[in-house]
């Protein structure tokens, strides 16, 4: 399937505080209208990759030192977040960062920052349609909402900006399995109904591969594997290390845990 490539990352390396190299040559491509999933263990560099795209590295003293990032054919590496967000890339941060002292409605209105002054009432209706829970709590201060509500809030907030590319960082973090399922269904709906391209960073590989079209696996600041989501699901290594299934497809038993050492070798 060859279609229009929206985001192209070419061999980037990211360095924090001039000393810590986190990404060591990451390349990936995101085609328009698809859901791309980025998997990997903690510290693999998934979040850093997202931040490199959205321009949020700078406040953390990080920098793209090599390679380039192209969005819609235009280079965007090391641009300010203001410019990048206005081009249509919105990142939903890890760990739900609501504006605690603003009400739900005001939180959503902050999402209009990239197109300040344009009408937003219709979008608000749309968000409440996607997330009916939010409509009920419009006037509540976000600091008093539950984790699931907050996750919906921050996703809705990002949607208010009419993103062309939505970067979701661990939307399932710390949520109950049912809520996770609901959120993933909504992600898929957003993708099909709004034609928003989505990059999804996840620990919950099972869920992520169910809705994603294509996937990348990262480890130690490098991409070690990529492929169509269905193929990835069938890959024995992915099965073993991310889906918790032994290569044969049975539930993994801890008796065989020693095999971990044997197999964990990509390429």
């Amino acid at each position, binding site marked *: 399937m060859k279609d229009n490539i929206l985001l192209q990352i070419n061999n980037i390396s990211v360095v924090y505080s001039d000393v810590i190299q986190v990404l060591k040559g990451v390349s990936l491509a995101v085609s328009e209208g698809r859901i791309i999933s980025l998997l990997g263990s903690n510290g693999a560099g998934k979040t850093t990759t997202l931040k490199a795209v959205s321009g*949020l590295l700078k*406040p953390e003293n990080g920098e793209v030192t090599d390679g380039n990032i192209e969005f819609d054919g235009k280079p965007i590496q090391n641009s300010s977040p*203001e410019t990048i967000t206005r081009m249509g890339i919105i990142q939903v941060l890890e760990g739900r960062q609501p*504006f605690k002292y*603003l009400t739900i409605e005001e939180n959503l209105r902050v999402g209009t*920052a990239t197109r300040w002054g344009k009408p937003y009432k219709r979008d608000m209706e749309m968000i409440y349609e996607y997330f009916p829970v939010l409509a009920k709590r419009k006037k509540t201060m976000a600091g*008093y909402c539950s984790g699931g509500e907050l996750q919906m809030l921050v996703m809705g*907030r990002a949607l208010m900006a009419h993103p062309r590319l939505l970067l979701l960082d661990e939307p399932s973090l710390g949520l109950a399995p049912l809520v996770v399922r609901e959120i993933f269904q909504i992600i898929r709906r957003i993708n099909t109904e709004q034609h928003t391209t989505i990059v999804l960073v996840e620990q919950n590989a099972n869920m992520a591969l169910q809705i994603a079209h294509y996937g990348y696996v990262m480890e130690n600041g490098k991409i070690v594997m990529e492929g169509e989501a269905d193929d990835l699901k069938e890959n024995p290594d992915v099965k073993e290390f991310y889906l918790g299934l032994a290569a044969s497809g049975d539930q993994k038993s801890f008796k065989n845990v020693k095999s971990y050492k044997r197999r964990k070798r990509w390429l």
Partner: protein
Amino acid sequence: MDFFLQLLINGISLGFLYGLAAMGFVMIFKSSRVLNFAHGEILALGAYLFLTLVTWAQLPVIVAFLLSLTGSFIMGFVIERLFLRPLIGEPLIFVIMLTVGLAAMFKGLILLLWGGNLYVYPDFLPGWLSLTLGPVTVPPVYVAAIVIGFVFLGIFGLFFKFSSQGIYMRSVADNQQAAMSLGVHVRRVFALSWAIAALVAGMSGIILGIISGINVHDLSAVGLKVFPVVILGGLDSIGGAIIGALIIGLLETFTGGYISPALRDVVPYICLIFILLVKPYGLFGLVEIERV
């Protein structure tokens, strides 16, 4: 009885003046969590600017007034650009200390440029503005102070509650990184809040100058009076700031009138300590939501 009424009216107008001064202060705090110790000096700079334009340049009052407000606005912008921009991301104590340094700098600058003498503006407020309430008359300045206080309170209240720019400002104060991720122009928000704050400060400086004359020591002391005012009201509430200001204004005038003029300047602080012991976030401040 007349004395009481007179004190009451003085107290309320003084309260509104403090409220005006406090509003600019709360602006800065709301958007960037910075306690601005240079507020009194910025206020004084506005007053001196107006003085220069009216007496030295002989401009018509209304032109001078608008020009000095514009001047204050630009000054706020420049201060943010030159001194506060480099400190974005540093711990707050450094930023606060920086405003302390700025306060000393501006005070020295004003003294160098204009000296420490007491100046007065030419009388220009029309007489019809004065108000007669029973046995006491309210001088025009006080009426102007109250009216302007109300107008600005309304404008800011609506601005922060309903306008998009106001909500962006509050979002930056709340969570800078999240605001940035949604495309809020954080640096512009900081610059804007300093500029607006300086504008309001300049305005209150001019009104204070009309009432009690222009002297850098008195004017910059108002900048410190702002602290009990905003703490009483809760640091981030503009409506609270006005109510805190009224309380402080009345307390001051009544203590000055009935007890002793010397105690007048200390009473706000004594009252402050007691209120803080009972309500640690002030009367109307946001209770910090701490989730671990």
